[in-house]
């Protein structure tokens, strides 16, 4: 990966339908219980992870060489069951340090009306390999 990918936006995958069951599964995996209502603040990683895979596939990068360095979500509103979410991922920055590429991504998560629900920012470290 090099500078040329900065500013590139990847086509969104299929929309992600948020259901009570999908939120419950996410909540219960963290050992908490779910009584309905909003999804946890980090739930948007579900469609955002898909978007990240689309990005990595497009750049022919293997997930096993990626370390998730940091993640933040800023919400315009909570995600709730019934939402249909679409993610557009843009490469915001890229630095190369010691052969490793430090990639900053911005994922805009929008609902069925196209309104922004939240923005995810991630730092992905692409570890140098033999062909780097």
């Amino acid at each position, binding site marked *: 990966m090099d500078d040329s990918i900065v500013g590139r936006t990847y086509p969104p995958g299929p929309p992600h339908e948020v259901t009570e069951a*999908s939120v419950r*599964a*996410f909540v*219960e*995996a*963290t*050992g*908490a219980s779910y009584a309905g*209502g*909003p*999804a*946890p*603040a*980090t739930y948007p*990683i*579900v469609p955002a*992870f*898909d978007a990240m895979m689309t990005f990595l596939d497009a750049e022919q990068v293997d*997930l*096993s060489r990626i*370390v*998730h*360095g*940091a*993640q*933040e*979500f*800023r*919400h315009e509103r*909570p995600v*709730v069951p019934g939402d249909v979410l679409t993610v557009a991922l843009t490469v915001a920055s890229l630095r190369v340090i010691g052969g490793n590429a430090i990639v900053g991504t911005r994922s805009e998560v929008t609902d069925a009306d196209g309104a922004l629900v939240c923005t995810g*920012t991630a*730092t992905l470290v692409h570890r140098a390999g033999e062909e780097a």
Partner: protein
Amino acid sequence: MAEQLAPATYRVTREALVAYAAASGDHNPIHQDEEVARSVGLPGVIAHGMYTLALAARYVDEVAGEPGRIASIGAKFTKPVVVPAEGVDVEVAGTRKDDGSIAVTVTCDGVAVLGRCVAVLRA
């Protein structure tokens, strides 16, 4: 004055990581399979960074008294949480700062695993 919030202890198990992989779509085997994790130089199965951040968000939701109040949350994944077959406890603690944001620490075996974890609640 910053206010110290009561800490919480959460148990992390491999079963929970398998459930989280299914719920999140992140099926990277380093979070499930000891052999694969060791083959890439890890000390064992490690929790997803996002799993650890989800525990921080769970803590903030518990502090807030209800879900859906977190306006933003983020962290650096500074150290892995190694999860042995019998599971491991993580300690989560928070400090409410003067600006209303909550600084969260997550430690495992006394080592901080998240860096600069901060949550902001909506009013």
